[in-house]
């Protein structure tokens, strides 16, 4: 059980970065006077998928399935995961605000665009992920 808990703890850096991104988007929305519900939906609908995928990435690194500190695997991972997270965000916002599931009008264009943006997201994700993981390792070894 202890081993399992320790292993799940490895998910923290990636999950943290993903959730933080959702929190930033939602927090800014609340700050400028958007309805609280809208801000919450954005926080949850974007933060949860990004956090889940981020945590998944950290676990794959911890299990040795992905090499640590390399850009190409991170970029490939998010090339798939980021557009999916955004799709979840878009459809959830539509569902909550309009009451029905609506896909983006040009789905292929939407996914392609998100795929390109994912490269930028991957740089920032890896940057923060490495730093948080290093800090956690240093704390754990003390």
């Amino acid at each position, binding site marked *: 059980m202890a081993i399992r808990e320790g292993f799940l703890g490895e998910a923290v850096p990636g999950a943290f970065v993903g959730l933080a991104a959702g929190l930033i988007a939602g927090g800014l929305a609340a700050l400028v006077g958007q309805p609280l519900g809208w801000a919450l939906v954005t926080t949850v609908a974007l933060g949860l998928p990004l956090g889940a995928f981020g945590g998944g990435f950290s676990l794959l690194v911890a299990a040795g399935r992905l090499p640590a500190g390399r850009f190409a695997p991170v970029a490939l991972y998010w090339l798939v995961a980021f557009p999916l997270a955004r799709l979840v965000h878009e459809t959830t916002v539509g569902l909550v605000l309009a009451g029905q599931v609506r896909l983006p009008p040009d789905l292929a264009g939407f996914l392609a665009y998100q795929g390109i943006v994912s490269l930028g997201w991957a*740089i920032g994700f890896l940057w923060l992920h490495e730093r948080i993981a290093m800090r956690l390792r240093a704390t754990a070894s003390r």
Partner: protein
Amino acid sequence: MDDPNLAARTETSTPPEKERVWAAGKLEAMPIRKLPDAPPSIHLLGPTVFLVALGVGMGESYMWPRLVLVFGPDIRWLFLIGVTLQAVVMLEMARYAMATGESIFFGAARVFKPIMWFFFVVAMLVYVWPGHLSAGAAALEKITGIPWTVSACVGLILVGVLFSLAKVIYNLLENLLSILIGLLVVSTAVVAAMVGTWGDLTSTVSGMFQFGYFPAQAMSPEWFPIIVGSIAFAGPSGMQQMWYTLHLRDSGAGMGAHIPKVRGLRHAGEEEKMPARGFMFDTDDKAELAKWKGWRRWVTFDALLLFWGITMLVTVSFTVLAQSASRTSPDVKNLIENGEREAALNAMSDAFASAGGPVLGSVFLGFIALIGLNATLGLFDSFSRGQADMTYHFVKGAKKFRMSHLYAGFLWGVITFGILVLLFGPADGPGAILDVLAFLSTFAMGAYCVVLLLVNNRMLPKPIRPKLVTNIIIGFGAVFYLGMLFFSLVKFGVVVG
């Protein structure tokens, strides 16, 4: 190696009996020491964060989006050239700093001391003015209502106190800037993902490859100097690349591991004795050269992915946002084309707000404030670091002080001057010398390309000198910066905009 400086201290305190040296120029020769091992894998945490903090600024968030709105996305090929050139410059700056543990200023002094003094004077003239605070603080004023001079003055004092209390300034600043830059990059990507479209992105990216596109309107006294300034501001501008050599050294990269780190004023007494010159490794030893290649791989990763990649990401994202905004509010193009910087930034913010809701307008201003904060933190540290380095090594009697004391002296000097100017004077500098300052800033970029050619080809051992292609690119850089600057001056009688 857990603590490179520990190893360095041990080595410097017990030099080999028969010391071998590398003589470079007329200054003291560099003793041969071991090159530390390069990081085992390509890891992300490097001093590039300083260059990104300094480099990602007004050029990326305002100047280039503005040019795209005026001339269309095809003008961006000039940005591609500017940033790529800066990535090569960064690699060449790193070559000297990692091989010797000396700053590029020291290298310039090895070639010809007056060159170094030229950069000392340029830094004093150009970087003491607190004008760089105004855009970020004004954006903060729009969001919070706090008058910008108040937040700028408080910010200045906070920066001084923070740096004075730090045990090792580099570590503090790297940690702080890493988080800020990480947040900037992640937030920029998320906002661009929510607002932009495939069409905006493809036109922005394809515009980067329209080499030679230059509309007639751009060749006018009104726009040409602005384009020259925007190219100079693509990535790090002025002396920022030169300061990067000091950060690289303090991060312990390459032979920088043999040089003690600069400490905050409170911990200045703990600083190890600063050697009077750098060190060289044995370039005849194959094992040492293999380590050198490891260091070059490490810094190349930093230059291409982190520096080039992040600069591109931020500017592409802001351009996509600007295009999206101008589509929603056609008035924005005129406002941006005609307005002053602050008016144009506000116009862009309003346009973003109308395009994507009030959240987007404030997000834009938030980014500008964050970029301003990054630049200010980086700039104050870099300026003080550079001036202290030159003073310590080349001003008679300065070695009576520790490097940390000199650093603190320059830091608090520029802060005090900055506050006085913010309260009583023109923030950007006296109007009469604004053109001179803009000229010097761009001139320094052409000049450091020449310095790089001289230093790396004359002061380093042959096995680690740059290849011909690299020399051609840096030579092109010198002609590019100086040529555009003088062309603008001669043809239109205006320096950069």
